[in-house]
């Protein structure tokens, strides 16, 4: 009907449609964030009670702590490693499905095969590495059996390696789906044109496929980065308590009822996340990509 100028009636109708969504997000997203923000300025009696007021003590404590830097470095290390592995695997899996599987139904079937675990429990998928990576796990048994090693490798489970394995296992799907969607929209004629113009396979990848999958890569990156940076249970379980991340430290703080310190650290983390996500959003108009 009417377009371009968005008359008042269209505004009203739009708001009526999204009203239920807003009615859920305001109390359960906006308000909690504000509560955490407020709590970060409150004082505590040390027993979980909060004294309303305004103090920057928690921020001073968090920023002065040598632990904070260590936690952020650990979190960034996990994030970067996970991002690289999920991106490379996700990109090539999507590429294989879109450009190499000729039967469309088969491609969709294989794609669904990749997505099914997404709809199952993360925790279960995480602990399912224990029988493989453990000291007496399958991998150690196999390596011992082949005579590659004499002592079982202890580094496989309850280590940083195990944490990264669990992340990549859980999150590659978040790269595959958006990259697959953007690749599937690439007009195959473009690639034929590139071939006719004398492009090599590498040129096509570099000059056509990668640039045109950019929005999928950006979307996948947002998912992977925000999930890894917001995670605590993979770090806690898979590192066996040996490593910590920003949110797992937050979890410990909450456990001992240090709400203001936990809240201050959460606010800092949120600011870092917002900065990263908005940097990514500057390179690509997500909304247009999604709604197109």
């Amino acid at each position, binding site marked *: 009907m009417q377009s371009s100028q968005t008359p008042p009636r269209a505004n009203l109708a739009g708001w009526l449609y999204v009203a239920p969504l807003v009615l859920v997000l305001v109390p359960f997203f906006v308000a909690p964030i504000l509560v955490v923000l407020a709590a970060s300025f409150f004082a505590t009696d040390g027993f979980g009670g909060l004294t309303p007021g305004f103090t920057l003590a928690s921020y001073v404590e968090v920023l002065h702590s040598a632990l904070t830097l260590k936690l952020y470095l650990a979190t960034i290390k996990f994030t970067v490693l996970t991002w690289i592995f999920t991106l490379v695997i996700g990109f090539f*899996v999507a590429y294989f499905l879109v450009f190499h599987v000729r039967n469309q139904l088969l491609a969709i079937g294989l*794609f669904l095969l990749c997505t099914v675990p997404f709809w*199952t429990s993360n925790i279960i998928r995480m602990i399912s590495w224990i029988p*493989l990576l453990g000291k007496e796990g399958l991998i150690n048994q196999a390596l011992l059996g082949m005579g590659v090693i004499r002592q079982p490798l202890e580094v496989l489970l309850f280590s940083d390696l195990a944490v990264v394995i669990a992340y990549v296992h859980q999150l590659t799907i978040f790269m595959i789906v958006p990259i697959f*969607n953007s690749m599937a929209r690439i007009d195959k004629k473009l690639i034929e044109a590139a071939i006719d113009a004398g492009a090599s396979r590498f040129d096509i990848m570099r000059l056509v496929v990668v640039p045109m999958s950019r929005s999928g890569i950006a979307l996948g990156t947002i998912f992977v980065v925000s999930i890894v940076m*917001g995670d605590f249970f993979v770090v806690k379980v898979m590192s066996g308590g040996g490593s910590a991340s920003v949110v797992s430290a937050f979890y410990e703080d909450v456990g001992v009822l240090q709400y203001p310190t936990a809240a201050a650290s959460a606010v800092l983390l949120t600011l870092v996340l917002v900065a990263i996500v908005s940097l990514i959003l500057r390179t690509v108009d997500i909304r247009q990509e999604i709604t197109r």
Partner: protein
Amino acid sequence: MSAVLADMPKSDVSKTVAPATTKAIAPSKGGRPWTFYVLATLFAFYVIALYGPMFCIYILSFQDIRGGLVFPMKGHSLHWFVDLFTQVRTGDVMGSFDRSIKLAVIVTIITVVVSFLAGLGFRKRFRGDTFVFYMMIGSLVAPGLVLGLGTGLLFQALGLNASWYTSALGAQLSWTLPFGVLVMFAVMSRFNHVWEEAAYDLGASRWQSIRMVMIPVLAPGLVAVALFGFTLSYDEFARSLQTAGSLNTLPLEIWSMTLNVTSPSLYALGTVTTIVSFVVIGASLGTIVLIQKRRGSATKG
């Protein structure tokens, strides 16, 4: 993933561009380039790594009483499943299972309705739509544990008791709704507006066009939204941790088991909960395929 689900009906009809030459990465007709074999191997490894560990714990959960957490398999029985539901040590598995299913059903219904309406709303620009959109993205990427704590503190401040059907329900919706709406975007982008216009031209009211045109046409997409709503709620953990109150949901039960229980009961619970997930996924995908089939035969016949 939903986009592809929604695409399934048209895939063999509208995309009739499949002769070998258009898959132009393989310039030589018929023959596969070497990259095919490399990537096919990578893909196979990926799928094995994806499913392999999961199947290990399903297998190990069927050991007998001597069973441990690693291979080799010691006997086979249903001992650990019985153990799971009868032992006090493993906690209130039945109760949490029951709560998780009920909660997931409520979340699914709300997610489908709210996402559908929001999907309709976002089709046209309106003042403030970008704000709502980014609020949704924010809700999606915010650390779940932090949001959960905020919700918990909010309920505490308001003097309300946190419980799985109030605070945890809301906390889970803040996670399932953004997914639901994103899936609706993908579904809506494939909806041909001409059908809706035609309904209006024939004198349909707004409600009639939604009920008699949009819902039937978008049914497969709505099933996909329901699948997301159910499974994301059923497996949700971080946001429920501080909001579920005194009674656990199933993922919280699993979480406490990973910290306390070192017997194959843990694997048995993993097997049981995955079976539920697989049943839901299978039913959803089956429903979508069924709708497409009936639609296909209706247009042909």
